[in-house]
């Protein structure tokens, strides 16, 4: 990292390129390109599942270890609390915006997805910080786990309170219990929280256990993320077609919403005195849209909503936007707003 900065403008561009030209993001592009050119490249199931299980386990474990080391300070509680707050508030104003064009069902489902967050975006941001060697609090991974549930609950409430459609013949009432079950026990949230708790427990026993597993969670991390983003590129690009059908309103929503949410997050982070790295993670958490736990829960709660709408906007547009433009952009704003310590 250079000490002498010739001009701020130059540095900013360099920063943007520094994220784009990392292997994970380049392989994301390669995946997109494969679909656009019609190559038959694919990462067959269940390999993407292997990668995502690994990534969740690794960031959960590492976060738990760091949490044990730093202790459950006020900062930790504030950071996690702010994330949960944002996960509850974002769906509310998103819903109001979406209702201007869409019905209650689709509005609620999309709003819930944007209230929650994207694990891969978070992980990419974290690995970007590591490359830049910018310190951050890895306990934010706890927020990653805790943001799914409130968003799902708010989405559910919106439908229950505002949808007055007569029950379709043969419609089956899905209990609140089933939805909460899905919200708190779906495999991603469960593995993340479980790994976090295990990381915490193991770190309390001393460094041996942590070191033995770190060979696995550290050394492979970057490579697995690279592979996973190659797959995400394939998946996102396949969604592009559907996006076109979604129309300009949703396309605009999918790009502007992360900007709005990230701005709010950066404001909050600055008020709370977060350090730069942590603020980036918080901004990315708020800017992301869930395509893992929330869609599954919404499919159960609101089968009336069209899955291709809430999955395509998040996966086909918001996700690549955050990865490519968002992460370096948010960091630039943060560097302007929050002093380095």
């Amino acid at each position: 990292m250079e000490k002498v900065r010739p001009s701020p403008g130059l540095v900013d561009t360099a920063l943007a390129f520094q994220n784009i030209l990392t292997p994970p993001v380049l392989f994301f592009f390669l995946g997109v390109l494969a679909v656009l050119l019609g190559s038959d490249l694919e990462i067959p199931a269940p390999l993407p599942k292997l990668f995502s299980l690994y990534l969740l386990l690794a960031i959960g474990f590492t976060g738990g270890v760091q949490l044990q080391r730093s202790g459950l300070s006020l900062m930790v509680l504030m950071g996690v609390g702010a994330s949960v707050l944002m996960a509850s508030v974002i769906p509310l104003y998103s819903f109001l915006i979406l209702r201007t064009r869409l019905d209650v069902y689709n509005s609620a489902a999309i709003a819930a997805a944007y209230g929650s967050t994207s694990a891969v975006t978070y992980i990419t941001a974290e690995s970007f910080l590591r490359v830049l060697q910018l310190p951050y609090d890895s306990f934010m991974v706890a927020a990653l786990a805790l943001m799914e549930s409130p968003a799902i609950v708010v989405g559910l409430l919106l439908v229950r309170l505002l949808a007055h459609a007569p029950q379709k013949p043969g419609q089956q009432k899905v209990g609140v219990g089933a939805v909460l079950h899905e919200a708190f026990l779906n495999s991603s949230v469960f593995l993340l929280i479980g790994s976090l708790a295990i990381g915490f427990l193991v770190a309390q026993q001393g460094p041996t256990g942590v070191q033995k597993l770190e060979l696995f969670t550290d050394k492979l991390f970057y490579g697995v993320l690279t592979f996973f983003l190659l797959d995400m590129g394939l998946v996102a690009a396949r969604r592009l077609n559907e996006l076109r059908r979604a129309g300009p309103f949703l396309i605009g929503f999918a790009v502007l919403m992360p900007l709005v949410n990230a701005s709010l997050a950066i404001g909050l982070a600055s008020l709370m005195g977060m350090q730069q790295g942590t603020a980036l993670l918080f901004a990315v958490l708020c800017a992301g849209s869930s395509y893992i736990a929330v869609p599954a829960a919404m499919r159960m709660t609101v089968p009336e909503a069209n899955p291709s709408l809430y999955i395509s906007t998040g996966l086909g547009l918001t996700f690549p936007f955050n990865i490519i433009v968002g992460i370096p952009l948010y960091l630039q704003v943060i560097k302007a707003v929050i002093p380095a310590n």
Partner: protein
Amino acid sequence: MKRVDVILSERELERLIGVINSSGAPGYSVARHITGQGAHGVVTSESLEVTGLGANVHVIVFCEEPITKNLCRELKPLLNYYGGVAFVSNCEPV
């Protein structure tokens, strides 16, 4: 004997198995990772694997005619609400 073929999203599999068991059918078989196209659009395995929605399943039930009746009665609302298709045909045990 009758053969009932049901194809729907993996997410609804547990619910479907509940219906089959309560219909009195003597058994069933499940094939996973089925992709396809129907009234609700195209289902590809890759994208759904990541989103946690899963692909489709193809469930086959061999059973006697009266049980088919029970099964179909309970199946219809499920398919109407969540999507999916089901068809009945004739067969003989070996």
